């Protein structure tokens, strides 16, 4: 598909607050992007788009559990459409609160749109909101989002969340996830090795240092860190005489755009 024909939709509800940055990033790469309130999805059709982003924020105040209310709404309001979207191997991306939504709606780590969460993003083990730049190690290439990255590559991207401790119900579930290559990003030490839970490199205590995962097909990906805040060089915290050209987060969006070009 020619890139000019592809369309991304950044969804929002009350409390979503990172929609604009994502739009700016995607448009910078030439992808036409619209921000839509969920209420507007009745008038517009999901099938008009090729990429769907659940951005960060505090949807519904993060009450009950981060992402829980929005996740449930997604299921009750447009499960069918979403199922079709995922089955057509279009791209779904969840960032921070959006990742929480995908987990709560059962899109991740599951396969399909189950409506039942099989993982959770629990409150950070520091019991605090954490805003900091961390290192991510690219762990899996199953997803288009890491298409232009190398396994083992280390990228720097900021996080900002209070509930990001990825947990699975059992050892077995973790083994399965690893085996299926669904682990996309892991928190890493400065030398690029996995953080092994060491704070603050692993900022929230996530099991197996998991920062991002995808579904079995790889077209649904969720991550706690915010690549849209590490898109431009001037957004990064370490400058030399001048800021670097790009931020590392850009690569993740580039991967998505590459995929859409071939879609």
């Amino acid at each position, binding site marked *: 598909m020619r890139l000019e024909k592809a369309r991304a939709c950044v969804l929002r509800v*009350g*409390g979503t*607050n*990172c929609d*604009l*940055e994502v739009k*700016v*990033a995607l448009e910078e790469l030439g992808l036409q992007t619209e921000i839509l*309130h969920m*209420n*507007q999805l009745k008038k517009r059709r999901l099938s008009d788009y090729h990429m769907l982003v659940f951005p*960060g*924020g*505090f949807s*519904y*105040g*993060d009450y009950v559990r981060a992402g829980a209310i929005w996740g449930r709404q997604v299921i009750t309001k447009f499960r069918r459409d979403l199922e079709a979207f995922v089955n057509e191997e279009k791209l779904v991306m969840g960032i921070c609160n959006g990742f929480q939504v995908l987990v709560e709606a059962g899109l991740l780590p599951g396969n399909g749109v189950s409506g039942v969460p099989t993982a959770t993003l629990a409150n950070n083990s520091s019991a*605090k*909101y*954490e*805003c*900091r730049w961390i290192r991510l190690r690219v762990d899996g290439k199953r997803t288009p989002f890491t298409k232009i990255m190398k396994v083992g590559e280390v990228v720097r991207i*900021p996080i*900002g969340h*209070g509930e990001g401790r990825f947990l699975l119900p059992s050892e077995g579930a973790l083994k399965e996830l690893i085996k299926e290559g669904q682990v996309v990003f892991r928190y890493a030490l400065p030398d690029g090795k996995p953080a092994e839970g060491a704070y603050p490199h692993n900022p929230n205590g996530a099991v197996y240092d998991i920062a991002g995962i995808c579904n079995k097909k790889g077209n649904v990906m969720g991550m706690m860190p*915010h690549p*849209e*805040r590490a*898109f431009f060089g*001037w*957004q990064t*915290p*370490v*400058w*030399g*005489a*001048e*800021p670097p050209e790009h931020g590392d987060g850009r690569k993740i969006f580039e991967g998505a755009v590459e995929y859409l070009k071939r879609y």
Partner: protein
Amino acid sequence: MRRASDKLSLFTVNLSATDDKDLVEISKSMGLSLSLDEMRYLKGYFKTPPTDVELQSLGQTWSEHCIHKTFKGDIRTENRVVRGLLKNYIARATRDLKKPWCISVFEDNAGIVDFDDGYVVAAKVETHNHPSAVEPFGGAATGVGGVIRDILGVWGEPVANTDVLCFGPLDIRHEELPLGVRHPKYIYKGVVAGVGAYGNNMGIPTVSGGILFDKGYTGNVIVYCGCIGVLPKDLYIKNTREGDYAVMAGGKTGRDGIHGVTFASADLPEGSEELRSAVQIPNPVVEERLKRAILRIRDGRLASGVTDLGGGGISCAAGEMAHRSGLGLDVNLDVVHLKEANLAPWEIWVSESQERMLVSVPEGNVEKVLEIFKEEDIEACVLGRFNRSGRIKVTLHGEVVCNLDLDFLYSPPKVTRKAAQVIIPSARYRLDEPRDLAEELLTLLADPNVRSREDVIRTYDHEVRGCTAIKPLQGEEGGPNDAAVIKPLKDSWMGLVISCGINPFYPDPYWMAAASIEEAVRNNASVGGRRVAILDNFVWGNPEREERMGSLLRAVEACYDLSTALDVPFISGKDSLYNESPLGPVRPTLLITGVGIIPDLRRAITLDLKREGNPIYLIGLTKDETGGSAYFRSKGIAGGACPKIDAKVSKRTIDTLINAMDGGMVMACHDLSEGGLGVAAAEMVIASDGLGLAIDLRRAPSAVGRSDIILFSESASRFLVEVERGHAKGFENLFKGLPHREVGEVEGGRGAGLRLHDLKGRELVLGSSEMRRAWRGY
């Protein structure tokens, strides 16, 4: 009081048959916080008995919080009368500076200055001290919410928050606290969590601030909340017309926050636990949606005016909007969405329920505006309609409950305050030079007022919106930047530079105010900020006490002098007086917030060292100015001279520094403030990855004969600057005629740290990690 309605709990109060004692009693029992003079004035004004709604309206509007009585009143000293602090000092400075880029000052909810590309910047800083003392989390959070609404109240899109917080010492013993005063630790945790929760929830980065600890804040916590926004200049629309409708939108109206303003303008009574209705529960999700709706209405040019509901609730917002435009307003309270059923008319009228805004809408647009609110899940109601009457008339269930002349409402009797001469403590001190300056420096780095704020800063999202170019913590190791730089516009490199200055410990209120102003400007310049506009926030004790008024007057005098000399106009501000507790008055505190610009933010300067071998310059003269310094306070020494400012030198220094930066000469820069040269140098090393500093105190521009004083004096107008080696000559040429000297260089190699030579030529070495441990605590 007489019941005035069969249906409503509406009362009238007959003032004509009252004596002074009755008047005082009425003001007290109704919670009006009006003085006897004001009550007498009302007694003379009302020919028929006013309703309780009318009296409450007056109580709110005439409160210190809403109308700044003290700042507008007459101040009598031994030998003169000052007619208005605001008019004669703060606003006068701005008037005298005549800056064409100041677009709206001291008028609207926020000050507005020009930015770039057709956009303007709006800035406002508020205090929320009393609510935070009672309920730290909710108080601080609603403080943030309130100041964000001030920005929305000028059609601004909020892009950054600031917070400066002052607490009692965290290690104070519970036994030392009188009844009703909560432990500083409890307040600290709650306030920090509240500030973070609201900003994070709304998705506005909290990028700048400060935290101070002192016994003078134990009974009176200070919570300053600031918000900065941007808007297209041509969308700054404020022309409410006759026939326009008043539309209120946002959260429901309830009993929360009733009498917040009169409460804020009164001494905090002992056992303030009882003031339950002053507690407000924050609801940032509603304000987030409200923000979306307001900005959509702005972009569609659907409204003719906007204002926030803050102190005084509907009564103040509606009255102000009408009065500002020379109009009147008929209000119908029946349509207000209520949280509970049985509110009295006056309660609806003055309730300070959060997350509400008021817009005036021309007839043809009302439908569209209501539709936008609906789409964003915000409740809205058409509250009334503007007319030419010049009066505010309020009805409920068909009965008129309030009918007041707006000119009368907005011209309260002037107050007169007396100001006593300020007594400045002696500057003499006795302190032997300590043997181990390295040890002293490490102690200072770990001082509660100097140490890293990382554990707080990281709980605030300072990256949301993806516009934070220069962050509060810089580099791999997170050193403390002097100011934050935001990139608010997608297609412009113009950066918004945000800084603070606060020096409440300097013993002379004049110089403490002067130092705060200079520090705000200095911090701004350190990263490349220029064309700085400033905001003042005074937190003082009861101004009816002469000595409190005396120090306030002296501080305000400095504001005029420094503002004009440094060429930095005031654009907005606020005062919070009556900060008193059973432990006495608050430590008089002035916060100055600086809002500057940098034409190309890619050229912003940070404090981390850049290249081995580059020379380090100390700009500015170091004098024996240690009064109130972090060094002396840590040693418990009361004497010492206040840092004084030669404003001419200061201005030239700052201008020259900016020139050097624009000439590409400056690689790193840090201003010298608390802890002086020692702490500034240490912070630069702390921020740097694998680089250190060598500094020779013998080369410092100074006339002081003691190493410890050179290292820790807090003389103003000083910077440490890393200069690109090839530019050293040019840099020195620029600074000709100003105190400056190359005092050392950037060092590399393993284990690089801070290497100091004292006046006797002895070498002190501090390792980076050892300093980081002291400063950060890990």
